[in-house]
């Protein structure tokens, strides 16, 4: 938050606050014409400043839009900054954008995608072993949707194709990087579930 939004009088006052520096304005201008998230390093280069200052500027701008309840937001996605419509106005956007919603992923595709996301790079055989079913069709779907791509070959004898997630995946989830995935540890079943499973598998009872 910057002081400027809290005291609107300052806007037309003598010295615009720091956020109205030419740098902040330049960030707004560049992001307005960009077609993909713009990395802080690139903005820093354009502004002849440091990435850290760019981060500060962007944080200040994002806070000001939020404080002013603008219909757009400034977010950090897939390693860069971009303008997006405000989430609470989704209903208007859906009416405006023809065929708005992208097709939903099936449960099988989502689960496979989760394994790829957390275990990448990972082979189809590894995916199949975890899911307990053949995953060829699902992996193809995920590739077609652009969420998963071949990222490497296993150096071992089989030269198996290894899969990883793409920047489209990050954009789809609104994440800045894979590191921002919710920690997998949070999903490990708790003691109660383990006990139930264990009981279910007990041979003689």
């Amino acid at each position: 938050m910057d002081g400027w939004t809290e005291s609107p009088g300052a806007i037309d006052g003598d010295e615009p606050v720091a956020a109205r520096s030419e740098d902040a304005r330049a960030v707004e201008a560049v992001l307005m014409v960009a077609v993909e998230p713009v990395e802080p390093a690139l903005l820093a280069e354009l502004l002849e400043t440091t990435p850290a200052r760019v981060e500060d500027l962007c944080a200040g701008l994002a806070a000001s839009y939020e404080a002013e309840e603008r219909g757009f937001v400034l977010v950090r996605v897939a390693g860069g900054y971009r303008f997006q419509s405000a989430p609470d106005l989704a209903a208007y956007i859906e009416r405006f954008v023809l065929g708005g919603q992208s097709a939903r992923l099936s449960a099988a595709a989502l689960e496979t995608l989760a394994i790829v996301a957390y275990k990448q790079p990972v082979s189809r055989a590894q995916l199949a072993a975890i899911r307990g079913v053949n995953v060829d069709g699902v992996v193809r779907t995920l590739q077609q949707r652009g969420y998963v791509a071949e990222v490497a070959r296993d150096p071992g004898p089989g030269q198996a194709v290894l899969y990883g997630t793409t920047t489209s995946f990050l954009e789809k989830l609104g994440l800045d990087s894979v590191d921002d995935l919710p920690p997998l540890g949070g999903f490990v079943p708790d003691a109660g579930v383990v006990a139930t499973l264990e009981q279910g598998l007990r041979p003689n009872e």
Partner: protein
Amino acid sequence: MPYEVSTPVFEGPFDLLLHLITRQQVDLYEVSLSAIVDAYLAHVETMGDLDLDVATEFLLIAATLIELKSSRLLPNVGDGDLDEELALWEERDLLLARLLECKTFKDAARALDRLADAAELSRPRVAGMEERFLSLVPDVLAGVTPEHLRTALLRALTPKPPPPRVDVSHVNLVKASVRDTVDELASSLPVTGPTTFRRLTAGIEERIQVIVHFLALLELYKDGLVELEQAAAFGEMRVTWVGPVGAPASSATRAVVAAISSAEEGEG
């Protein structure tokens, strides 16, 4: 194919197992097992020699299920051979670990779905450059020949090199497979000498990782490469390397043989 167990509520054998067990709606041993086992075996058959890794995993599970089923039919099998019972428990723990892993990713998938739903509400700006700047955009076809275009296509169709290594330390724990841990232990245990399970897993926080270590030790035990001693229930488990000092025998090969033979016994 009977393998395709799929309803709106669950899909695939693992999900079926999870569902049945966690809901306790069905008696696991009486209703579902034979169907699941049949489905697994049928699937393994259709796979032929396509993927030994997957086939091995399936066989292990199938063998476990058959063992479980037979022990259900013969309630006092536990009084029999101790080795058999140990093997049964080992497979059971492996199955448990697999189920836990499967459930972990099911829950993770649900979280990703929620993230995607939230992200869907906010659309990006992609309007691009105003006309006055268009002339500045470098012409992508400047100096490009049809042959360059062909090269660009081939480049696009070739798998990309791996991305810069991302920090996935928070998921590395699950990455370690039983086999990796077997290899790891097989090279470290001969050097460290007798130790305890507690010491081996000191500093490991994730439960799955501890389970993986335990399963790896059982694997080594089965191959006669380590001795395991436990004086009392929940007591300290001593681990002693008794195998040759050097490259260990391929435990994966033995696991396949063991799983196949126990599956045949179970069917008979």
